[in-house]
């Protein structure tokens, strides 16, 4: 793993992670809150920031595609949409609210010293690895309920991506312009070193673009949760891990940009292309957030909290991990990467997490935050 493609991939990934972790901590760019607060308190503010990120990414990705800069297109690991994606999204939505953060939110909060997120992280590893136990029949269910071979909406409708993506982006831009005129894209913030969420949305869209440009795909981390979980599991039950089909499969096979040879990777414990792409991103996000929290002198462990909060984080983490594998893919992958190119899986994932976040909010207010 010392060839240059892996070096470029790992370096880009680490830089993307450090930037994202720092920025997300400073601006409280919590994707879970975007959906949860919509249902819990009728607050649309953060969701507008997601619209901004998606609209900017739509234009950037489309220009990048048209200019031949973003290859492969669509990016690898996207599959056809199915009922499995919708159900996985629902499970993911419930999990992210109960865990108090999504797969990336958990990392940046963990980096800033949150014990709740540390517990959610353990749940995520366990949930991701446990998915391997029912992967064979779940993937059969996904195949049986697949909508068709098309990966994106333009492919499905057989139109040029620009014809669908750019008009939709224009509608989104008009909505955002109206929000800006009414002062709905900013609100007073008092946290030290705060970065306005609209700036964070622009920075994160740029990070996603750079990731696709140099790595060949936007940000994503959840296969590595399964990989890390498998690595831990293999310490205790190596025979069992070796016998699971999910950990044997190499779902990623592609030639990265700036590389001449194809690379491959999967969810098994081995160090492969998935590890090169995602491990530096995970470590980068945790470190970026830790640097941010230390810089504003807010890094502190709080562990004396009601036990039901820990239980919620653990259960939420398990659901998040399992849900992300059932989709497959996480909110960052689908909302920041897939949605801007109108990937069918990403659209179904979005449809799933909306009711999931609503159910999660109901469970959270009834059993956890009292």
């Amino acid at each position: 793993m010392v060839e240059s493609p892996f070096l470029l991939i790992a370096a880009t990934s680490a830089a993307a992670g450090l930037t994202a972790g720092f920025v997300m901590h400073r601006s409280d760019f919590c994707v879970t809150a975007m959906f949860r607060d919509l249902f819990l308190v009728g607050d649309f503010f953060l969701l507008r920031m997601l619209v901004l990120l998606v609209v900017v990414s739509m234009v950037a990705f489309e220009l990048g595609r048209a200019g031949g800069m973003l290859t492969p297109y669509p990016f690898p690991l996207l599959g056809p949409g199915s009922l499995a994606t919708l159900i996985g999204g629902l499970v993911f939505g419930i999990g992210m609210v109960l865990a108090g953060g999504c797969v990336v939110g958990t990392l940046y909060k963990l980096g800033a010293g949150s014990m709740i997120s540390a517990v959610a992280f353990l749940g995520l590893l366990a949930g991701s690895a446990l998915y391997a136990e029912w992967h064979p029949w779940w993937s059969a269910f996904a195949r049986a309920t697949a909508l068709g071979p098309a990966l994106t909406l333009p492919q499905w409708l057989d139109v040029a991506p620009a014809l669908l993506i750019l008009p939709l982006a224009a509608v989104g831009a008009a909505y955002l312009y109206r929000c800006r005129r009414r002062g709905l894209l900013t609100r007073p913030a008092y946290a030290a070193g705060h970065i306005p969420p609209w700036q964070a949305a622009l920075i994160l869209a740029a990070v996603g673009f750079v990731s696709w440009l140099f790595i060949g795909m936007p940000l994503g981390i959840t296969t590595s949760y399964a990989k890390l979980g498998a690595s831990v599991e293999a310490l205790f039950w190596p025979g069992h891990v070796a016998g699971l089909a999910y950990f044997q499969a190499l779902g990623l096979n592609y030639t990265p940009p700036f590389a001449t040879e194809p690379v491959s990777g999967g969810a098994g414990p081995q160090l492969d292309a998935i590890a090169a792409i995602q491990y530096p991103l995970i470590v980068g996000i945790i470190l970026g957030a830790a640097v941010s929290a230390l810089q504003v002198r807010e890094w502190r462990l709080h562990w004396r909290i009601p036990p039901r909060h820990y239980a919620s984080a653990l259960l939420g983490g398990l659901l998040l991990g399992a849900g992300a594998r059932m989709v497959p893919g996480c909110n960052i992958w689908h909302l920041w990467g897939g949605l801007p190119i109108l990937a069918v899986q990403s659209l179904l994932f979005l449809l799933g997490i909306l009711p999931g976040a609503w159910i999660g909010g109901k469970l959270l207010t009834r059993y956890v935050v009292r």
Partner: protein
Amino acid sequence: MEQVNSITIDISGQICPSCLLLTLKELNQHAAAVRSGDTEIVVTTDDRQATATIPDAVNKMGYAAEVTRVDAGYRIRVCAKR
């Protein structure tokens, strides 16, 4: 100077969005007293997001909020609008 009754709650480290929800719960329970200026709610938290969401929410409800930095977190005071 008139004595103001302070209700203090520490919501450090809890799962998000405990800080916002528990503050609103407390505020709803003591709405009349807070509105009259007799009582204020003082929240200690490490939740950065709450420093934006609590002032935003209570302002919409007709109250005032004041955020100050303490140790490794924040103190958010919710009181009547002057």
